């Protein structure tokens, strides 16, 4: 009944080529993409949440052992990587801004900067992993750990508890690094398309959404850094 009476939607005078057929307006399309991204990030929070939950359980259970194992991490690598990631969040924001202002070259440049910073992070992470490997801190048959509980210099750390720390360390930073690699790949694609002029002030949703993703990965690190590196540095 009402279907027949319904007024047909007035078509746009100049349809945006990026408007997909099943959306009525550009605004609807943009809102949908943005809500979709936020839901995806909610999903990601739960995904990492499982590991954070496991971390909290064992941190509570093996308090001193975790403190000791945490002290073996090189705080400078962690700090440098934190700074690198924060900078990369800035370059992403600048990229979005450049898109809003129709600045194609600036957009591409900021995207490339973001990629470079992401690669620096992964490189530092690689160095850290290599050191873990050399120190036998990679969980598995060759794992070995000697150390004392920070608050009890005369108490040996139970290596099995330290191994759980390093298991979680590798699971969490590994999953984080995987997200970084995906992000770098994403920005690589976007940079090529940006250079070809696909994005403009009229259409930059992919840049914005990729930026949201990158900020999320950044925030995960903001939690990982204190939980893994800083928990026992107060002395």
């Amino acid at each position: 009944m009402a279907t027949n009476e319904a007024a047909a939607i007035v078509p746009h005078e100049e349809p945006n080529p990026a408007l997909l057929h099943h959306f009525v307006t550009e605004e609807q399309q943009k809102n949908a993409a943005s809500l979709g991204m936020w839901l995806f990030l909610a999903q990601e929070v739960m995904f990492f949440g499982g590991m954070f939950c496991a971390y909290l359980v064992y941190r509570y259970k093996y308090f001193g052992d975790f403190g000791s194992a945490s002290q073996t991490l090189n705080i400078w690598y962690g700090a440098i990587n934190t700074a690198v990631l924060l900078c990369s969040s800035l370059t992403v924001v600048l990229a979005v801004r450049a898109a809003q202002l129709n600045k194609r070259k600036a957009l591409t440049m900021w995207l490339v900067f973001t990629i470079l910073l992401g690669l620096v992070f992964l490189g530092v992470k690689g160095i850290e992993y290599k050191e873990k490997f050399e120190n036998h801190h990679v969980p598995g048959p060759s794992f070995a750990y000697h150390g004392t509980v920070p608050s009890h210099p005369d108490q040996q750390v139970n290596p099995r508890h330290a191994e759980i720390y390093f298991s979680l360390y590798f699971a969490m930073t590994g999953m984080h690094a995987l997200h970084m690699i995906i992000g770098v790949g994403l920005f690589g694609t976007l940079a090529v398309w940006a250079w070809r002029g696909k994005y403009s002030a009229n259409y930059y949703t992919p840049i914005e959404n990729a930026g949201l993703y990158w900020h999320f990965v950044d925030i995960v690190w903001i939690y990982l850094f204190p939980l893994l590196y800083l928990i026992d540095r107060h002395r």
Partner: protein
Amino acid sequence: MFSHIPLWPDAASTNAGHVDALYIYLVLICASMTVLIFATLAVFAIKYRRSHNRTAHPIDGSNLLEVAWTVIPFGIFLTFFVWGAVIFFDERTPPQDSTEVYTVAKQWMWKFEHAEGQREINELHVPIGRDVKMIMTSQDVIHSFYVPAFRIKQDVLPGRYTTAWFHATKAGTYHLFCAEYCGTEHSGMIGWVIVMEPRDYQAWLASGGGNQPMAVTGQTLFAEYGCSTCHRSDTEGRGPNLAGLYGKPVVLEDGRTLIADENYIRESIVDPGAKIVQGFKPIMPTYQGQISDEQLNALVQYVKSVGQTSTGQASTGQAATTQAAASQPTNDQNTQAQPAMMTGAAK
């Protein structure tokens, strides 16, 4: 063959009667609810079937009804919850002076050791009229100790103790099942609980011959492993005096207070660094992997017995530290002081 089809399990413990009563209550309430809903559906379906002289009568709903059938069922559910909780509380609180049976489960058998020293496999002899407490652990995967006739089930985990208890009321032979899937021969991990008259049970205990009580075995191990060099019966030891420890509050080095239950004693042997007693140094080496579960059980039973019986070697002379711990129940944590409530609790 079909002349006798069993539809109800044997009831052979005090707990079985409690659970059955609650079950019948739930069955009655839920069956009435089901009948009510089915009857209403049937009446409506017939009475309001399509007919030519009547059309459907539009009704939006009724807030009063919505509230009513939210609140009333919830009130009924709460009675289920409270009654169920009371029984559960009872099931999880072994009486103080229970007869104790240590259980080690492994793929795919049950190994029992009575505190008196008798050992058996896949058979558990227990007397009528005594509280029996099962102190259980697993050597490999998770199993579950399940005696339908007692309406008792408790998962058995590797690396810690869980407990269950029952008070058998009827002589007979009852199924013992493993109720948690544990691999290939899961359905073969079954046995029998043999409930005996007290006199028969005494005879059975005596027939074993040559068994020494677990506490005695534990005492020997205590000396063999050199535990007694540090855990001395005076105040001079490098480790806490263990006399009268069991069931008492312990103040830890980080200020926490906990009750010394079986799990605490067990953990202190295999992972001594986990909980350091206030005033002591974390110098005890771990015994993880050096002693078997059976030896561990015996040691735990010995530690529990020290100071509880007049025959224990260290029964006199409560060490100052233990006494201090016992006499300073820190107020806010004192509420935890219900022994065995926390057994099996995930720490």
